[in-house]
């Protein structure tokens, strides 16, 4: 006995960006980086070949977490920090669904840090987009766990004294299987990263560097400037050397495994590390690189195949299901009557 409707799915080939929009007014501040992210996501989704009714966006609380209201899919604007847990329930109940988590640096890394790292280690097949604006936007400007030391905010009038998290490092520490980073305004890299995240089987973690025009304007200005980004960013490409500044510089190691900048011409290309997406240690080392000492790496840090929690669960269900007769009521009755029973007459 099943009560689940068996309906004709939407033909995904006919879907366009418009199918992923809603009639709700988008309520972010003018100039907020979230607009660009929304546009990129809405542009990418039709390319994935998934009927929109099979797509679910779950968010926590924060400016970024309003995101689901603007997506013409199923969605939930849940409670602060708990989106990965709720999304885990959605995905593991129905693994057919494409489940996305939208979260902020406060939502994901402050109150929700634990759920995030557990979703990553379990490798539940979720696509987690963390909008990192290094500030609490919705609550009007307190520092966040990614805010830099010394930052003066409403709650740190004397300057913050907390050493910040590096979201990519956190994900790697939690044994994530897919980790990437991209800038809110990077319309070239973002769709690539989003498509790869969606394609990855397992939890995909994407840190999106996002500008908060009101409370932390220009937080990423030093690396987002188009004119200098060739030198301030390091674009990661699997199998290719870690080069930047138009190929004149690269990333290598010193003899104690500290990263260093290699002058390609002077030292030769072979001193430059070759990016290997399957190497967590390299991904971690790359995550430590930040502007201005190094260029900030962008793109896919890590992508390793690993069984997903939801698929393994389905496999166990199928395996156990072999014991079942197919008649749930009868099997239930058998379970009720199992163990030591006796008949009273």
């Amino acid at each position, binding site marked *: *006995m*099943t*009560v*689940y409707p068996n*309906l004709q799915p939407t033909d995904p080939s006919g879907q366009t960006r418009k199918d992923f929009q809603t009639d*709700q007014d988008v309520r972010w501040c003018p100039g907020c980086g979230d607009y660009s992210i929304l546009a990129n996501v809405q542009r990418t989704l039709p390319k994935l070949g998934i009927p*929109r*009714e*099979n*797509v*679910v966006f*779950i968010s926590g*609380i924060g400016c970024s977490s309003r995101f*689901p*209201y603007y*997506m*013409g899919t*199923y*969605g*939930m*604007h*849940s*409670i602060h920090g*708990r989106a990965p*847990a*709720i999304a*885990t*329930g*959605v*995905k*593991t*109940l*129905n693994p*057919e*669904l494409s489940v996305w988590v939208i979260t902020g640096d406060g939502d994901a890394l402050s109150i929700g840090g*634990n*759920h995030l790292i*557990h979703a990553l280690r379990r490798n539940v097949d979720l696509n987690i987009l963390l909008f990192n604006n290094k500030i609490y936007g919705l609550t009007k400007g307190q520092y966040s766990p990614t805010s830099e030391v010394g930052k003066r905010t409403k709650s740190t009038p004397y300057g913050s004294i907390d050493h910040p998290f590096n979201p990519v490092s956190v994900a790697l520490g939690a044994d994530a299987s897919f980790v990437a980073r991209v800038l809110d305004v990077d319309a070239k890299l973002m769709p690539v990263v989003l498509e790869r995240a969606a394609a990855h089987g397992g939890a995909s973690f994407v840190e999106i560097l996002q500008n908060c025009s009101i409370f932390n304007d220009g937080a990423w200005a030093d690396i987002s400037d188009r004119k200098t980004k060739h030198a301030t960013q390091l674009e990661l490409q699997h199998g290719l050397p870690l080069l930047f500044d138009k190929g004149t510089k690269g990333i290598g190691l010193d003899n104690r495994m500290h990263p260093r900048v290699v002058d390609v011409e002077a030292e030769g290309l072979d001193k430059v590390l070759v990016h290997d997406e399957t190497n967590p240690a390299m991904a971690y080392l790359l995550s430590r690189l930040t502007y201005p000492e190094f260029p900030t790496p962008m793109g896919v840090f890590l992508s390793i195949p690993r069984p997903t929690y939801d698929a393994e669960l389905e496999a*166990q*269900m199928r*395996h*156990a*299901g072999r*014991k*079942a007769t197919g008649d*749930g*009521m009868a*099997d*239930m*009755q058998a*379970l*009720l*009557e199992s*163990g*030591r*029973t*006796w*008949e*009273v*007459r």
Partner: protein
Amino acid sequence: MPKTETVLDEVTIRFAGDSGDGMQLTGSQFTHTSALVGNDVSTFPDYPAEIRAPAGSLFGVSGFQLHFSSKAVLTPGDAPDVLVAMNPAALKTNLGDLKVGGILIANTQAFDDKNLERAGYATNPLEDGSLGDYRVYPVDITTMTLGAVAEVGLGQKAALRCKNFFALGLVYWLFNRPLEHTLDWLKEKFHGDVYDANEKALKAGYHYGETAEAFDQSYVVEQAQIEPGLYRNITGNEALALGLLAACQLSGLKGYLGSYPITPASDILHFLSKQKHLGFKTFQAEDEIAAVGAALGAAFAGGLGVTTTSGPGMALKAEAIGLAVMTELPMVIVNVQRGGPSTGLPTKTEQSDLLQMLYGRNGESPVPIVAAQSPGDCFYAAIEAARIAVRHSVPVVLLSDGYVANGAEPWKVPKMADLPRIPVRFATEAEGFEPYSRDDDLGRPWAIPGTPGLEHRLGGLEKQHLTGNVSYNPENHEFMCQLRADKVAKVADHLPPTAPHGDADGTLVIGWGGTFGALRAAVDQARQHGAKAAHVHLRHLNPLPKDLGEVMARYERVLVPELNLGQLSFLLRAKYLRAVEPYTKLQGKPFKVSEVLARILEAKEVAA
């Protein structure tokens, strides 16, 4: 020498020993055999809080009490008629409960200096004359067990482990029980030497009773009048898990448990983890918040979302339950109550979370509450909780407690075919779909991801009536708060009239949850004592039955016994402005029938 056989109506036995002495097993074997010979039975296991307490320590004593009778049995018995004490610590911690004139069987060998000291005895109570109030049977169980199993050739340690079967055999003899059922069980579980040794120990105990001079008589407890049918023993946690599974079959919903281990709720998780063949999924989350979050996610996706917990774990779920209230998704939240506050007394029972379940969330956040009243009843309570959740699209709290959860009783196995289905209708029609429209039960449509055309967004912000969009409109907020309250109140439309058990006037005893047996038995006994009394046991704590006020009005006195500081009393007073009389106990232990009986018989002045 032929001994006499005395016929008794009912007997309560407690087996007590070190954690390693196997008392739980002994007790459950005796229970099972008693059930099979046709007695009605009720049991109460009492484990130590520690995993492995040091041998002989007071806090390492493990007990198992059972009550069997030729009449209907409602509780595991107040005070044991028979105490089996495997060591001094067991004697020390349990003697106080033994009836005056009761039988004490003590394993003399264990009463050595070391154990006596560990138990804090200056002199050996078996020898110092301090046990004059009891019929003491000192038996050298250890030595006789070793003797009996010697020929099997087990090591000393393994041989000693058979002590409990010697004791069991002896008590079997004392109560004229057959050995066969336990032997069958042993055969199923063990092979070779271990089987042989336990069999020998069991029989040696039995024969010791038969032949020793010590016992001048044995006892017979006749068959009880029991409803015909197929029976099994069941604990509350098992029955609750089975009820959840059954609810899935009755509704056709996929079952989903999000849980985090915690005493005394963990066994529900353990049990359900094994039922994947019934399509039930379990998820051990990183904490209670993630557990209820995942259950909520599963409910959104169209499953029967369940979460199970206790004590501090319950406190942690409050925020997410609030989200379930706002999103109006059907869920079952199981709270197996334990001693509080804070970590409290994790292994002890209590009923002190009632008001928390009613009010423990920010804002006006009403949920229906259902309580289970006995181990077997957990099955039906779970189905009822699921039924309400689905019917009204609402998270429902199901209250159990440590006593019900760990207690066991013979249980008539229900027939699935006899149980009413739980109707579920997912929304599928895009035309005119509004996620917050209402049906007669004030439920809203369940439109699950995967359904084309019904894409919508839920959330914790206030919703606009019908559309479900975010709304800050003042009147809408008031309307929706009232609607959510009305919806919970609607549950009462489906309740049967309240039928007090007993007299139509006099003292009305109102209870809820795991105190059922003690209250029912006390009321029955009070009536036998000539008092006018009746009993109403509430399955539904929120909403209360519509006619409860009227029913209460028919009685001169309303007595409300609870294992807390008077939470239901508080509720009844607020709701009905009636000076009910709270009778509270907060000792981590269930009521004794005698306590409640005494209280019924002694009319008390009630302060307004």
